[in-house]
């Protein structure tokens, strides 16, 4: 369980987050949507422990996030960002192994190597193992990064509550790999992890989310759980875009058309 209470974050006088209180529970696939500048990424950075809010608290299973040792936190919480840049050439193998850095002190164990190789298989990047990361295409890079994140969350037993956050992580991927990545995230979610993803595509969000949180101007303005359905007035209010919702029936999720 991840609880956020009264979160406020300011840069100078500009209020980015204006009092957010909510809870994210294990096994539910949460999606955060909202227009540019609505504070989604800042929200993710605060509840992942990277930014310290001026006000409010972030609690991971009764423990305040800023009281948890950074390495310990990194063993159970992983974040995949839009596109991690690399400034020097490194092999794909070493990038994925970075996911294990919080788990070993100086040398990786055979278990760490096994976990990395599984993670690479899961993301179809095992053929790239010896490639220089800088020579990969945008989509390949993102899959390698996700393999790193998978390796980070693997193998520390089920007694740990795991947390996986995706910050616009599928924007650079092709159709197949978008679904592959989100399906794996969904599988991790159904194993009991707390999963929160920021997505831009509303239809993708509707397809994967168990709960959709709409943000606007630093606040949560709509919160749709299971059973609630998205309406065109919500989209108009949040994004200022006219849209229609079509229900294809026969078990398919609704589709948003513009």
């Amino acid at each position, binding site marked *: 369980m991840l609880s956020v209470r009264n979160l406020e974050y300011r840069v100078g006088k500009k209020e980015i987050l204006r009092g957010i209180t909510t809870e994210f529970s294990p096994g539910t696939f949460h999606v955060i949507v909202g227009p540019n500048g609505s504070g989604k990424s800042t929200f993710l*950075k605060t509840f992942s422990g990277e930014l310290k809010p001026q006000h409010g608290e972030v609690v991971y299973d009764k423990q305040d996030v800023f009281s948890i040792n950074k390495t*310990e*936190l990194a063993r159970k919480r992983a974040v995949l960002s839009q596109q991690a840049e690399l400034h020097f*050439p490194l092999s794909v193998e070493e990038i994925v192994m970075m996911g294990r*850095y919080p788990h070993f002190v100086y040398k990786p164990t055979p278990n760490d190597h096994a976990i990395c190789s599984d993670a690479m298989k899961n993301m179809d990047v095992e053929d790239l193992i010896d490639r220089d990361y800088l020579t990969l295409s945008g989509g390949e890079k993102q899959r390698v990064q996700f393999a790193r994140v998978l390796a980070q969350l693997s193998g520390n037993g089920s007694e740990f509550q795991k947390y996986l956050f995706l910050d616009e992580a599928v924007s650079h991927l092709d159709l197949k790999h978008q679904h592959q990545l989100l399906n794996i995230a969904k599988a991790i979610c159904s194993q009991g992890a707390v999963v929160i993803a920021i997505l831009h595509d509303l239809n993708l969000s509707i397809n994967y989310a168990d709960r959709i949180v709409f943000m606007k101007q630093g606040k949560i303005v709509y919160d749709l759980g299971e059973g609630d359905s998205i309406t065109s007035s919500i989209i108009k209010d949040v994004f200022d875009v006219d849209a229609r919702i079509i229900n294809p029936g026969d078990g398919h999720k609704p589709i948003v058309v513009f």
Partner: protein
Amino acid sequence: MRKLSFRFYYISLAIILLITLIISTRVGAVNLTYEKIFAFIGKALRLSNDVEFSRIEEQVFFQIRLPRVILCAFVGAALSVSGALMQALFRNPIVEPGLVGTSSGAALGAAFVFVMGKTITGAYAETIGPYLLPLFAFLGGFLSTIVVYKLSNVFGKTNVNTMILAGIAMNALANGGTGFFSYIARDPQARSITFWNLGTLTGATWEGVYLVGASTVIGILLCLRYGKSLNALLLGEEEAGYLGVNTEKLKRRIIILNTFMVAIATSLVGVIAFLGLIVPHLLRIMKSSDNRFLIIGSALLGAILLNLADMVARVLVAPSEFPIGIITAFVGAPVFLFMLIANSRKQQKGGFYA
């Protein structure tokens, strides 16, 4: 990327270093023979031997040649490791140890002593004179780095881009100061300033070896602990944070380690440019950008290359000496360019050096 292990590179470099050290002790104004060198060492270890050598030769070896060669190895290691650290910390390939003002500040301190030394020591010139140059060079290097670090540390967060810019400004300021001292200096003093800025290992003593040796070995052992964190930092500060790295603490510690290693080395031998920039790149081209490899590899390769350069400096115009900074630049730059070109031909397009 080739599949030879890191250990293969460490062992090869260590063997090459050992050979370089032995050859390096042989050549110079007085050429020694290998038999004599082994005889000196044998005598020092109280082993019997029957090679004839003169007392003078023995003294040249133990009082001049050996400390110089060992000091040279430590300085080369310190500068190259700090080059690797700085490039990783700033995530920038054109960074070298002097970037944050350490070498130019040290040069300013040295220029001050060359010009004003006699005036400020007065009657005590005899006793404190020899220590004045390294002391002021160290203070100059240390203070200018601290200023750069403080300037870039606003709101408790160190901004790496501000730090590069502050470093450039501090370098300009310190170079201006050094230029001013050269301008007001008398001719021999101005010449000393110029020579110091090109680096020289002439005055190597055992005290210097102990001092630089201690700071270098301790510095390298400490920074080995940060190899993993520096790798994570290559992904960016946020990603490194998500991997459990306390980036603020890391930046602070690396800057402090770097300043100690570079300021102490520079204070004794002057400014040696370019070495700290190219050694990490040569290792990246050879094998990998993994910082754990770069730290150990740079220490070994830096020691080898600086010793080779110093050997050339001693032989080229023997019995006089050539400034080592000119050799590191004249030999280092073409070799580096050649490796860049050769590598870009070989690698897949789109790689870092392609």
